[in-house]
């Protein structure tokens, strides 16, 4: 059979569900421009144009939300990205191979802990009354800190617990890439009298540049889509001024307050900004180096 059309059958089930639950919702985004009523359905609801967007930008919330989302995502990126690269470089140049395996196994493990368990552990450890951290602080003569209620702490807790959980796993891809460094470079550098540190800095690190660029572009495309799960789990009324991000706001307004069209408009605006950022960063990196994604 030419063209192997029967292979299409292999793809049909996945495509059907993807069309229903992914492409139809994209078409359904038009409820952002309508006043959605459940009875009238997506296509029957009244068309209101940009009213929902205007409502968002006229509210006091929008700037706080965008700022919180941006800060959280850029801070996460700025903290997590170098840690993963440095960890991979250190592991790669580590002399004790068996100990290295142990370190890798342990640092990968937190990646498989669920968001809820991760946040549960944080809340337990940081609890003002019985938490370990406050026990240590009190033992050292300090004052008890109610971490989860402290606005100035929330972002650091969010970001660094994320680094704790993800550093091992995000280093895997760099560690794998480092296997591709030709030993000849290192041999030549040794003959020229380069120290190990110099070799890591001038041979290994530049070798990772394409992988780093690729992941950076991918990450920039999602700066405004900070994961809902963790932010929502760590949220409480006291830290809301810094912990409310676009995803949790969309959820609260849409699912809880049932303001469906408004929530869709906020979500849509979010996706549009993401796409613009992705294309822009890709364009800039394409200009600066040959490593653009597309």
């Amino acid at each position, binding site marked *: *059979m030419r063209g*192997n059309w*029967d292979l*299409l059958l292999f*793809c049909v*089930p*996945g*495509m059907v*569900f*993807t069309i*229903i*639950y*992914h492409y*139809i*919702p*994209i078409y359904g*985004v038009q*409820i952002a421009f309508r006043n*959605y009523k459940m009875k009238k*359905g*997506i296509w029957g609801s009244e068309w209101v144009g940009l009213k929902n967007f205007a409502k968002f930008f006229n509210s006091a919330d929008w700037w706080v939300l965008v700022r919180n989302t941006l800060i959280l995502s850029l801070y996460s990126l700025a903290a997590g990205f170098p840690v993963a690269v440095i960890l991979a470089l250190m*592991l790669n*140049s580590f002399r*004790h191979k068996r100990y290295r395996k142990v*370190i890798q*196994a*342990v*640092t*990968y493990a*937190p990646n*498989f*802990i*669920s*968001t*809820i*368990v991760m*946040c*549960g*552990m944080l809340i*337990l450890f940081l609890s003002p009354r*019985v938490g370990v951290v406050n*026990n240590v602080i009190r*033992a050292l003569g300090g004052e008890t800190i109610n971490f989860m209620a402290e606005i100035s702490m929330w972002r650091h807790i969010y970001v660094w617990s994320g680094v*704790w959980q993800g*550093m091992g796993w995000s280093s*895997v*891809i760099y560690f*794998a890439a480092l296997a591709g460094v030709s030993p000849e470079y290192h041999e030549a550098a040794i003959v020229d*009298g380069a*120290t*190990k540190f110099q070799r890591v800095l001038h041979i290994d690190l530049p070798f990772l540049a394409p992988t780093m660029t690729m992941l950076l572009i991918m990450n920039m*495309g999602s700066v405004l889509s900070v994961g809902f799960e963790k932010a929502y789990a760590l949220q409480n009324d006291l830290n809301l001024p810094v912990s409310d991000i676009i*995803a949790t706001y969309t*959820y609260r307004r*849409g*699912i809880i307050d049932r303001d*469906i069209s408004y929530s869709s408009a906020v*979500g849509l605006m979010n*996706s549009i900004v993401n796409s613009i950022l*992705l294309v822009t960063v890709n364009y800039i990196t394409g200009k600066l180096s040959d490593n653009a994604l597309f």
Partner: protein
Amino acid sequence: MELSHKKLRRARGDVIYDTIIFIILTFLFLIVAYPLYFVIISSISDPIEVSAGKVVLTPVGFTLDGYKEVFKTRTVVRGFVNSLIITILGTSINLLVTIPTSYALSRPDFTLKRPITLFYILTMFVSGGMMPTYIIVRSTGLLNTWWALVLPGCLGVYNMIVARTFFKTNIPLELMEAAKLDGCGNTKFFIYVVLPLSGAITAILCLYYGVGHWNSYFSALIYIQKRELWPLQLELRNILVMNTSVATKQVMTEAELLEKRRLDALKEMMKYSLIIISSIPVLVIYPFVQKHFVKGVMIGSVKG
């Protein structure tokens, strides 16, 4: 003379480097390992000692009360069973959809390869968002059923790409051509030749999808209101994160105060046990499958 001097200096620089790396990595190792270890020893220690900060390196006042308390909590047991069913159901559907699709898209002689691949890649960058998806899930009657947790994400694009790369590199095209000459069609070839050769990729996909289902709570939070259907993660959220506290009397006698302290401590202790129990399915398989997980990342990082 000149050379040996150089050699000596280089060696000293490297020794310093190696020592620093050793110290930093050991430090990181402890930072990651200790909290995990602390949860384990706290789950089997006397809760009063834990909250007093007496548990540091070894369990103090060994007890399994926390675990008993967890098994006595009906909602947790039910959530555990629900999550097991959801994970098995979801992963099976994921595999049934992902493996055939990935194989078809790995074939260079498949005419629709490019458009269908693009069809999937696009979904990584464009989406309708939370509310439009919610409306479609509701109008297809999936609300308050487990299908809402497994059907919308039945094909993970990243996993599909990993599997496709696997088939590209592991099923030689010559094998297909030879089978074709013998009159074997694509479907037959897939069932009798490809599937028996895809053990490794099936393991990787099982793990990625399985851990995903076990750990997720977002879909259930949105789509499932009926508590009997809740997965474990939602029950955990109630206990670990939302801290459903019980109202207490303002004035209490000495004995009541002591009893309350004990109950509070037990509640705290139960949290440690809960963390362990909820992580058991992943913890049990983790040591055996770690190399598969890593292999998956490596396959995925190869452009193809």
